[in-house]
């Protein structure tokens, strides 16, 4: 496995962790009685993500790593819709798709 592939896979893993962490943060804002618990889960996941991302940045440039992180937008939108029960409209999905397309283009040409 090349260093670049290793770096890209680590960034993808970070994106999934990011999506779960963000859902925990939103839950901390919604559930005041369990605020500390959800906040702790989110921060713990962020620490793990930070550690992995720091290692990933030694293998790929930030201009490559950052766009690949756009996968987290899809993870967050899916979790927002099905876990947080947010109203994710067609327009919002199109917006997310354009954001992901844009950052993918950035990543391909990084």
């Amino acid at each position, binding site marked *: 496995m090349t260093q670049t592939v290793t770096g890209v896979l680590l960034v993808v893993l970070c994106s999934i962790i990011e999506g779960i962490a963000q859902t925990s943060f939103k839950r901390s804002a919604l559930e005041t009685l369990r605020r500390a618990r959800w906040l702790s889960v989110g921060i713990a996941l962020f620490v793990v993500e930070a550690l992995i991302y720091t290692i990933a940045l030694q293998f790929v440039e930030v201009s490559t790593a950052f766009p690949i992180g756009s996968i987290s937008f899809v993870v967050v939108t899916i979790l927002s819709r099905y876990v947080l029960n947010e109203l994710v409209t067609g327009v919002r999905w199109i917006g997310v798709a354009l*954001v992901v397309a844009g950052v993918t283009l950035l990543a391909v040409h990084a």
Partner: protein
Amino acid sequence: MARAIPLNLVARLALAIGLDSAVQIIWKVAAMQLPHSAPLPSTVEAALHQPIFLLVAALFAWQLVNWLKVLERSDLSYAQPITSLSFVSVFALSALFLGEHVDAPKALGIALVIVGVWLISGTHHDSRAGNAGTQ
């Protein structure tokens, strides 16, 4: 389609984008100072001895506090994609300070991100507020 967004939320989102950009750039600079392909414990130990990682940690804390305020006022699926505007600023800052190249395809990618964020910003920012449209 355009809806009024509270000024406070706009300010918080702008701060989130600025902090996100700063963290990305400084983190990259910090990561470049760590030993290459070292074992994980060595990497962590080396990071703890780098003052620049304290700056990254401080910015993260500020970012987290600001982000929780954002999430109190808006949907996660609304706010998080908007922070993708930091891609635009990171590319600009990477070109300026890290010598990374920005060409025409990257400019197109940035344009797509901006259009996507513009579309999302036109949707209702808080679907729990009770007056969200179906769009």
